[in-house]
């Protein structure tokens, strides 16, 4: 699974390959990662270097890493979340019809709205399942649901239009 971690204003591409390997940027690294005594204290041995840190979760995707007496705030997103954010952030002018597209391939779990229904900005208009997780797709603005092009249970391609909002 691929993640984008932002630490000290630098973006790091971190891919979790398996239990023992990760790729950072284009470097394949052998890692040995363990939680100590079931505490939020983690021991990381990466290519022989041994590190221990407190890792606390902040809001959303923000983590606080206390390492060697310094605090590093780190934002971690996986690609899905990044796309979701992109999808959500796509700004648009009023009135103009907006086509909600699938940010990733997946299974339509639910369309909790019906055609003609008016929705608020941020209201959930579709639930899409992918990577064994269900992701709520929100309306980028207030409006009315136009045509709904998919039904629950259907699988959709990335970028396939799910419904439109007038």
């Amino acid at each position, binding site marked *: *699974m691929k993640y984008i*971690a932002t630490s000290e204003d630098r973006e*790091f591409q971190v891919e979790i390959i398996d239990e023992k390997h990760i790729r950072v940027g284009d470097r394949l690294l052998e890692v040995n990662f363990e939680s100590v005594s079931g505490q939020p204290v983690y021991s990381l041995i990466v290519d022989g270097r041994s590190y221990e840190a407190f890792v606390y979760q902040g809001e959303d995707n923000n983590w606080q890493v206390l*390492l060697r*007496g310094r605090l590093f705030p780190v934002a971690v997103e996986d690609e899905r979340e990044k796309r979701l954010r992109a999808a959500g952030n796509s700004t648009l002018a009023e009135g103009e019809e907006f086509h909600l597209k699938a940010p990733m391939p997946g*299974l339509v779990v639910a369309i909790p709205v019906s055609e003609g229904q008016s929705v608020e900005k941020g209201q959930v208009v579709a639930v899409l399942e992918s*990577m*064994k997780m269900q992701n709520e797709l929100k309306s980028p603005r207030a409006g009315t649901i136009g045509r709904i092009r998919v039904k629950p249970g259907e699988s959709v391609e990335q970028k396939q239009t799910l419904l439109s909002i007038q």
Partner: protein
Amino acid sequence: MFKKVLVANRGEIAVRIIRACRELGMDTVAVYSEADRHALHVRYADEAYLLGPAPSRESYLRGDKIIDIARKAGADAIHPGYGFLAERDDFAAACADAGIAFIGPKPSSIAAMGDKAEARATVIKAGVPIVPGTEDVGNLTDDDLLGIAPKIGFPLLIKATAGGGGKGMREVVNIEEMPGLLHSARREAESAFGDGNVYLEKLVTGARHIEIQVMADMHGNVIHLGERECSLQRRHQKLVEESPSPIMDDELRAKMGAVAVKAAQAVDYVNAGTIEFLVDKDRNFYFLEMNTRLQVEHAVTEFITGIDIVAEQLRIARGRQLSYTQDQIRFNGAAIECRINAEDPYNNFIPSTGRITHSLLPTGPGVRVDTGVYPGFEITPYYDPMIAKLIVWGETRAQAILRMRRALEEYRIVGVRTNIPFHQTLMDSTRFMGGQYDTRFVEERFSMDEKEEYRDEHAEIAAMLATLVAHQETERSAQIVRRGERDTSNWKWIGRWERIHR
């Protein structure tokens, strides 16, 4: 010696005193508030009695109850530790009336030094240099003070006459803001000490806060155990103490020591006490106040002198002569103390409470940790945030700093945030290493995020750690979702959705 000693305190200092008593073969009596049933001093003591609810006023400040307990338990002495009742002459007197030895100075000495204005007057007579300020005894009205202020000159400090630890202390840079500051200072002093009296003192800039440890017995012997450098403070709270002071030399130590002894003699002092001085850039020193009790940072002196100050307190209180003469006192190496507080250095040092779930103490050569907490113990908001003192010794100051860095790096406390990262950053700061700091350094010229090159070096590791933990969390929640799916298939579930939303 005493048969049984009641320890009228809590936390690390109560534990420290119990240890000294035990090593001298004395039974110990602990007192505790409802919040402290599981506290270490209760677990370690031979006897333990409940004082009352968590708030200090209803528990650790209830001198009457404490004396009753001492009587009931048959304790022949009471050690007040620091804070709480340690500098209350009425409590010391009440102990005497109850025929219980108060392990500390005579009530008269506490009173004389406890009232800061009177203390100034007393030591002036003894020829001890003081910071310019209101020379006359307290009870001054705001008008009096506002009148005197310009003569002293700004900036100046408002200080509580009954005060200590910066409570009721205000810094005044001009006459306009002074009335408001007087008001808040008096209010704070009133609530902290039940005495709203304040006095004024010139603010010495670029000053160091250096104190001298004195010991006096009932036979007129008074000695000093050298200095402790306490300039590293935040909001008048000491954070780090060290001895020797980076600016000290034998000559100045001898001079300040002699003056400290004189100040103690001026109030006919007995037992352990500390004279606090302000030392300006030209190494002129001024008497600030005397702490008529055991000091938090006494362990720093214990490390470099090899003397067990608390054990010596107990012997003195029993009427013994001092075990040492001044010329037997040797200073060996350097010691540093870091006060470990349950507060978040990354969030304006706000206190952090909660249950300690895990802890790993630094140990090994030259390392001492005095603490009152342990894994499973709950840090409550009722008392001081200081949960431990980390003290190290080294043959040289440089070695002590390296050892302190090592120890801080090893120290793990999970469950509450601590200021350990603050200390780690401080120990790495060139100013501290160079010994170039004053009482304003921490607040005005110290930053938690210096050492950029260091941060760059570890930014990537931090990124990896955060990602690995985040991934773990994701996997975990994903599994929960999967389990959920086994119960009710998505199709049923979607059906429900549709019913709801049609």
